[in-house]
């Protein structure tokens, strides 16, 4: 069964239609890359999945559970939405780390706040804190940041910041990890270290949705590629289908610079 099913998502800002009837599904352990020119709606789609934007129409289901249904207003209450967001993780283009916390604290914060809602929190406070710290340290080690845990974001390079942000998202064990152009703010060298970490996550069968302009990465790592243009999914399939045997002229045109180069 598909871990994520998205059906007929539409979203307009004022009079501009940004998403026009988007439907797709994703299997567990797959990596979906969404490519397309700027302004094609990729980021808005990710933001809809993370409930940062509210779709005007459509349904979002995760593991068969309906998280959002525009026909059913009770699925949109604030409290409900907060829990539902936890199915998804989101890594931003601009990292959005919390500047007043160290790398380690950034990874721990949300998990600790959530732990406070556990019924046994008061009794096991110290233990829980310890467990979360161990988990956070392990994640940062995995990201290659064992010697940077106690640094503040402004003391880290962009690539290191983005890896902290990935660890922070992973700490909550989301079903699906989303990336919104995670390397667009980085120079080529730093891009490499972030992509390497993402490749490792893909090898570990982490379910991911990656909005990216890194065509080589999309081709080599993704199990599925969606090409978006002007708010529509113009083409989708395996990387081979999309990159080498695209049906649409617009896709070939978009990819031309990459395929020729």
């Amino acid at each position, binding site marked *: 069964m598909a871990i994520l099913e998205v059906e007929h998502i539409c979203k307009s800002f004022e009079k501009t239609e940004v998403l026009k009837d988007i439907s797709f599904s994703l299997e567990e352990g797959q990596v979906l890359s969404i490519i397309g020119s700027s302004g094609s709606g990729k980021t808005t789609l990710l933001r809809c999945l*993370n*409930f*940062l934007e509210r779709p005007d129409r459509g349904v979002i289901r995760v593991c068969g559970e309906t998280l959002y249904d525009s026909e059913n207003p009770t699925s949109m209450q604030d409290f409900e939405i*907060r*829990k539902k*967001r*936890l199915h*998804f*993780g*989101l890594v*931003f283009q*601009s990292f*959005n*780390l*919390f*500047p*007043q916390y160290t790398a380690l604290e950034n990874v721990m*914060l*949300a998990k600790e*706040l*959530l732990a406070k809602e556990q019924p046994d929190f008061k009794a096991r406070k110290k233990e829980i804190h310890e467990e979360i710290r161990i988990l956070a340290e392990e994640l940062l080690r995995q990201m290659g940041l064992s010697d940077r845990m106690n640094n*503040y*974001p*402004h003391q880290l390079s962009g690539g290191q910041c983005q890896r902290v942000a990935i660890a*922070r*998202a992973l700490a*909550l064990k989301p079903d699906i990890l989303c990336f919104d152009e995670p390397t667009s703010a980085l120079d080529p060298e730093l891009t490499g270290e972030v992509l390497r970490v993402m490749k490792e996550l893909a090898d570990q069968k982490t379910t991911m949705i990656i909005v990216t302009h890194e065509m080589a990465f999309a081709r080599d790592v993704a199990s599925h590629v969606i090409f978006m243009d002007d708010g529509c999914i113009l083409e989708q399939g395996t990387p081979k289908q999309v990159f080498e045997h695209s049906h649409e002229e617009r896709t070939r045109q978009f990819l031309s610079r990459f395929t020729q180069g």
Partner: protein
Amino acid sequence: MELMLEQMPVVIRSLNVGFLQTLRLFAVTLLGAVPLGLIIAFGSMSRFRPLSYATKIIVWIIRGTPLMIQLLIIYYFPGLVLKNPIWGGGEAGRFLAASFSFIFNYACYFSEIYRGGIQSVPAGQEEAGLVLGMTRSQIFFRVTLLQMIKRIVPPMSNEIITLVKDTSLARIIALQEIIWAGQAFMKGSQGISGAIWPLFFTAVYYLIFSGLLTVLLGRLEKKLDYFR
């Protein structure tokens, strides 16, 4: 000169009493206006239009009129017009009325500084908190607040130092703060009259106190330097 030295102990004692009242008004205003300003800031940022308009109009009126007029109206209006002197008589009543006016006036100024501070924290910070399943109040207290405080320390320092000197406006309703105490020796008090030098001394009190605050607020600013 000799006379001045002779009068000095009397004057200093009197100025100390006045300065204590100045300090009390300063402290009460700060304690009241810092949290009230935050409530007003949330009011003016509210998505509920009537609330945000009402708040903005109040802030406009308070910031758009002299504090001195507000003091006079707040102190005299209840007694003279409503025939109900809610503040009570004597120095205690004057202090209450002055505190009320100052807290409200300064809260309005603070609220605008807060609003600027909150809005200058990038939207991405709130979004990052949201996708991590944090509640809006958790995001405010654990993420936004400290970043806002860091940004508002310099403008707040400015306002706080202005407040030190503004407390002297309370003299208009005869609150016995330090200027009132100093001026008394011009008109004649405790056997001293026609003396202007006590007023110069009041200035020294202000200078020392605002110097102290400048150092303290500078330290706070440094303390928040550990992040950007």
